[in-house]
């Protein structure tokens, strides 16, 4: 994990982030001041808000890859589970008729809880059984394949229980803050700040706590970590718990801001979050932040200038080019192992 590796990150992250935020705001203000600039500025702002959602899910992906070397395809499904379960709870209440339709706040909490539970189930039935004997290409794919299996299970169970229609979550905050010609959705701004806050908290966790150090040592070398007394089997579930929490928070914020839930909401966000993770560098939390915001911007500006479908092509082509030309992304280190002869 490269949470504290280079000189850039030795500067206090919070200060750096505040400075960057300030610079970004000034830039946006400057663009707004230009003639005709306010539309562009509005798009930039929307792009960053969308990016906030991608950041949180991208961090879940990058944390799992950084510590466990595992591309967890179940992550977007956890995001979807939060939204759909929250909607289901709000609509019908707890299962087996234990209550009526829930208020939106406990419904959301229920959704997050289910996401975390699902994540821990995935850990129980994928990682515990992993026994790489030969270390060849298809063996490394085993957890990835399991996660694909869980993706199918969760997505289709939701389709069966909750139907395939897109739905509307019963609460949507509409509080807009007008600054000059720009309109800032306050809930969106709040969720961007909340996402970033959670990610900074995670970064602090990794850098300063015992658990965090244990996670980083596992990322460096699982064998050395075990030798140093890290209880790998107790720490690994924490990664899954954090992934579940991050996806749950992202899902809850998405639902509150955009109100649309569907069994397919995970697919769209998941693929963008993967793109964000790669652009930022696998295993790098800061990379996931930068990548998430960048993907949000690219997508929003792309839609604005080229239309919806073309924008998707732009994002995916950028990703493909990035993987080929600079696989380590913005902040990652190239990790191509050489076997010992």
């Amino acid at each position: 994990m490269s949470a504290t590796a280079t000189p850039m990150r030795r500067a206090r992250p919070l200060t750096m982030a505040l400075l960057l935020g300030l610079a970004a705001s000034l830039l946006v203000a400057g663009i707004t001041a230009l003639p005709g600039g306010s539309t562009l500025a509005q798009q930039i702002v929307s792009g960053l808000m969308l990016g906030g959602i991608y950041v949180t899910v991208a961090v879940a992906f990058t944390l799992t890859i950084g510590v466990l070397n595992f591309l967890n395809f179940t992550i977007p499904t956890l995001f979807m589970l939060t939204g759909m379960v929250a909607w289901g709870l709000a609509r019908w209440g707890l299962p087996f008729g234990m209550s009526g339709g829930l208020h939106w706040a406990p419904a959301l909490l229920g959704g997050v809880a289910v996401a975390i539970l699902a994540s821990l189930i995935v850990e129980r039935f994928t990682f515990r059984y992993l026994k790489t004997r030969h270390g060849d290409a298809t063996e490394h794919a085993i957890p990835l394949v399991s996660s694909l299996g869980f993706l199918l299970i969760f997505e289709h169970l939701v389709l069966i229980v909750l139907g395939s229609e897109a739905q509307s979550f019963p609460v949507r905050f509409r509080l807009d803050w007008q600054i000059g010609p720009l309109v800032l959705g306050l809930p969106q701004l709040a969720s961007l700040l909340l996402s970033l806050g959670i990610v900074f908290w995670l970064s602090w966790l990794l850098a300063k706590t015992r658990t965090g150090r244990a996670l980083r040592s596992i990322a460096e070398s699982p064998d050395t970590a075990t030798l140093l007394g890290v209880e790998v089997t107790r720490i690994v579930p924490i990664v899954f718990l954090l992934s579940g929490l991050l996806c749950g928070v992202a899902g809850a914020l998405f639902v509150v801001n955009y109100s649309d839930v569907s069994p397919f909401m995970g697919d769209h966000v998941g693929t963008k979050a993967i793109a964000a993770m790669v652009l930022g560098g696998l295993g790098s939390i800061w990379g996931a932040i930068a990548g998430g915001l960048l993907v949000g911007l690219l997508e929003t500006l792309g839609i604005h200038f080229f239309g919806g479908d073309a924008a998707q092509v732009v994002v995916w082509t950028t990703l493909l080019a990035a993987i080929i030309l600079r696989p380590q992304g913005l902040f990652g280190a190239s990790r191509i192992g050489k076997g010992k002869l």
Partner: protein
Amino acid sequence: MSGYWAGILAILAINIIFAYGIFVTAAAGQLNLGGAGFMAIGAYAAAVLGEQLGWSPALTIPAAVTITGLIGIAIAFPVLRTRGVYMVLATFAFAQVVTGVILTQPVLGGAMGMVVPDYVDLPVLIGAAIATVVLVFFLMATRLGLAMRALHDDELVSTLMGVPARAVQVASFALGAGLAGLAGGLYAHHFSFVEAQYFSALLSIYVLLFVLIGGTQTAWGPLVGATFFTLVPELLRIGGSWRYVVFGVIIVAMMMFRPEGIVTRTLLARLFGRRRRVADAG
């Protein structure tokens, strides 16, 4: 033969060809999570050539295979510089680019899809599937197939044995792409309609799963995988979403207990092998 079973066999034949396309690259150690992208190229190539140039399937399908194979070669060079999870992501991204581009082209029907002239009947599909099976079994029995399997196990040492790693990997990737393109071309002419939404990320995932569950050690794997996952849900009369839930559970269970897949070399040895001693050799 009833229409229902004819439909199942058609899908089975196409799935088998598609699965062998992914198998050929997986057996050489590369995971292609963008199979649907190549199938889409094959399908749309056949559709466009038939529609715009009036070619018959006897021409469009070989052309589709060639075009997909050439694109496979072109993509292989940059993609094969990546490894492991990066290759998975690169192939995934490629497939997304392909469907994305198709959706934006009105000449390809955009999101409405495209009608494909000239119907290709079930016997053609079955013939193509049989030919594919024979081709891949032959390939795996050659020195080229041996080199591919060696690369899967240990790329560095294979190079130190004189195997031209890059050339073999590009060849297997391109062949895989060509087979996926064949599956696409046949699909287009048999179902007479193509739309980009069909060639989704989920399709790429399914076919990779057939192959990994079937087993990548021998050429029997994809045959078993594709057949099992196409026929069993029909036989058990599981429909709709439950089919995929069961599929998912099987995958998770397999990865826990038998990650090398259903068909392994040791299984074949136990079923068919006779023990020989070196001293028996002429």
